[in-house]
């Protein structure tokens, strides 16, 4: 299905000069990784503040827009404390081990027509596999800190990852079945041509797979340890979980991993369920040929990027909203919810989608 669309995936940064092409891609990924999470973080500050009848940051820059930059500078200046009892190498490596996979995920995420670094055939597989590496860094940090609170936090994070990786992958598998490809750009293309059976009304996968969307969203929040699933951090029980002993730039790296994860997960959700950079179902980007998703002019590329970033921001806002509203779940309730509710439901979802694909 749509094999001609899938093969259209050529990155805008593919030049004749291989070295230049790699350089541009690396710089672009780093720029996205260091800028978009800051914007999401600022949005979180403000969205939380206004829901809690307060103003949030107001001093650094107009309306506090530079607050997170100021925070970054502050973190860089702080003393880097390593506890005497800590396993120093593991302790120092842990933030990096958590951060790097977070950056690598961005390599395959399509931010617009042609706006991706690599067009992997197994893009979704790669994103989910690499993304879960971050937990290794969390576990390392929890173990190496030589602190009981950190240890409990690290172990909770590992348990949470094991429990929520399954519903996440099963929900994504249903999308793969429906789209017939693991290529992320291909999934976007498949959604643009997906019609309700017997009509010519174009819908995104969130419509036939609303259940899968809900499962993926919940599991993604749990993977990121965002409230109400923030048991690995649980500041009222575990002080700050695996981050308790970290300070300065290492602490900032853990934080950046969390916000980078929010961005990449939101991007994945919008690619899998919300039509990627498509403005609305059945609406082509201005200046684009064909199905209106690939082969675009400059205007189309910019519009596509804007739409994608808007969707990322919206999904991140939903995560922030949940944080403002809900208390934290308990560890055993979290496990129960995954094994007894989400995994069976995602299997049902997968079965329905597979049967629908064959029968219809």
């Amino acid at each position, binding site marked *: 299905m749509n094999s001609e669309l899938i093969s259209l995936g050529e990155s805008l940064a593919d030049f004749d000069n291989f070295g230049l092409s790699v350089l541009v891609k690396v710089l672009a990924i780093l720029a996205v990784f260091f800028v978009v999470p800051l914007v999401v973080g600022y949005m979180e500050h403000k969205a939380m503040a206004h829901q809690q*009848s*307060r103003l949030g940051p107001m001093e650094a820059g107009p309306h506090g827009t530079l607050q997170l930059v100021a925070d970054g500078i502050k973190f860089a200046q702080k003393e880097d404390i390593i506890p005497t009892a800590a396993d120093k190498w593991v302790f120092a490596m842990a933030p990096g081990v958590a951060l790097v996979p977070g950056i690598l995920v961005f390599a395959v995420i399509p931010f617009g027509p042609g706006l991706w670094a690599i067009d992997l055939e197994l893009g979704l597989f790669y994103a989910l596999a690499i993304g879960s590496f971050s937990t290794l860094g969390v576990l390392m940090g929890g173990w190496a800190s030589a602190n009981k609170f950190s240890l409990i936090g690290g172990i909770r994070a590992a348990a949470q990852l094991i429990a929520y990786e399954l519903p996440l992958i099963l929900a994504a598998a249903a999308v793969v079945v429906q789209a017939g490809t693991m290529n992320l750009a291909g999934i976007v293309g498949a959604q643009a041509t997906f019609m309700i059976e017997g009509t010519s009304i174009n819908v995104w996968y969130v419509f036939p797979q609303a259940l899968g969307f809900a499962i993926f969203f919940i599991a993604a929040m749990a993977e990121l340890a965002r409230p109400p699933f923030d048991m690995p951090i649980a500041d*009222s029980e575990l002080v700050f979980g695996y981050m308790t002993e970290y300070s300065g730039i290492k602490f900032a790296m853990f934080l950046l991993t969390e916000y980078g994860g929010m961005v990449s997960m939101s991007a994945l959700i919008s690619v899998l369920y919300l039509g990627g950079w498509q403005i609305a179902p059945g609406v082509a980007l201005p200046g684009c040929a064909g199905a209106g998703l690939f082969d675009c002019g400059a205007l189309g590329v910019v519009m596509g990027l804007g739409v994608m970033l808007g969707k990322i921001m919206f999904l991140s806002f939903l995560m922030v909203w949940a944080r*403002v509203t809900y208390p934290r779940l308990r560890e055993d309730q979290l496990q129960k919810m995954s094994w007894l509710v989400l995994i069976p439901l995602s299997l049902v979802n997968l079965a329905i989608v597979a049967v629908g694909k064959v029968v219809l």
Partner: protein
Amino acid sequence: MSDLATPQEAIRPGTAPGEDIALEFRGTADFDTSEMTLSIGPAHPATHGVLRIVMDMDGERVVDARPVIGYMHRGFEKLAEHRDYRQIMALTNRHDWLSGFNNELGVAVTLEKILQMEVPDRAQWIRMLMAEWGRILNHLMFVGSYAIELGAITPMFYAFREREDIQHLMESATGGRLHFTYNQPGGVKIDLPKGFLRQSDELLKLVRSRLPDYFDLVLGNEIFQARTVGIGPLDPALALRYGVTGPTLQACGIAEDSRVTEPYLKYGEIDVEVPVGRNGDAFDRFYVLLHRIRASLDMIEQIHDAMPSGPVNVKLPKMVKAPEGHVYGRIENPLGQLGYYLQSSGSKTPWRFKMRTPSFSNVQVLPHLLRGTLVPDMVAVLGSVFFVVGDVDR
């Protein structure tokens, strides 16, 4: 204690601490595990103060818990022996810093008992008005902090928004925001400022209109219910044995409240509603706390209507001296029963001054509630047995 109401419904069977939780961890029995001792506090976000809890843990399960108190012992009882009675009032609104007005009211009531002093009507109604606003101030703080311990941050900001308004109102009459020192033997220091009752009435309407937010956002929240229902159930008999009072006792279904059972001031002349829970678990304790705010608002409305005119204090000698003898005065503080035992040798300072503070008794029952819980439940239990560490350690 005088007449106690009986619990309305029996405690649900099979909810002894740890009974249901043990099942969920049966799989770990084969491993060779050893217990870990974890010291929560004295500086830890969950203990809001410097309470320390030494826990023996098997994984996430608490095998045993021992509260260690005394990190904030400031020697109030001894200090009071060297202060005259008006200074003692300034002293006592500091041991439980969240219910300053009620503490000094307790001293005033005790002192007037031994002095056999007639307090003007208006002073008594003003004291009741302030005491109820003070109760709401205290409860709002616990509403916010309990939610934050369970991981919900928003109720804290809501609670502080209301607290700010109430503190502003009380400041206009007393001059203080936290430590009011508004009482004096025989009345209150000065009369209410002009327009105070109107402002108080407006604030009453405002707080009442915002109260449903707390019920919806916290009490009605599915995750909040999952975290608190059936967690740390307190047996009424055990609660009485330990001298647990206030919302923690009322959550067990016992409507003991000295405003009703032994009315002081003019509480006999208004309707005092005492909300009670059924199971005595963390949810019921929080439920009672929220309903006590609502009940206090109703009381404030009645007090507004009944407020008489007249003098607010009596002329005092330069130095107040209690006659020789001893007296025990008790009032209903926001957290439970507050009692002051005063022994006087007839001089200007007490010979002995002992406090019976609600937080102290409430904390003692903690080991029974914590045994067999999980670490997250530890926080849910700790926050729901309402206490202020300064009130525990004095």
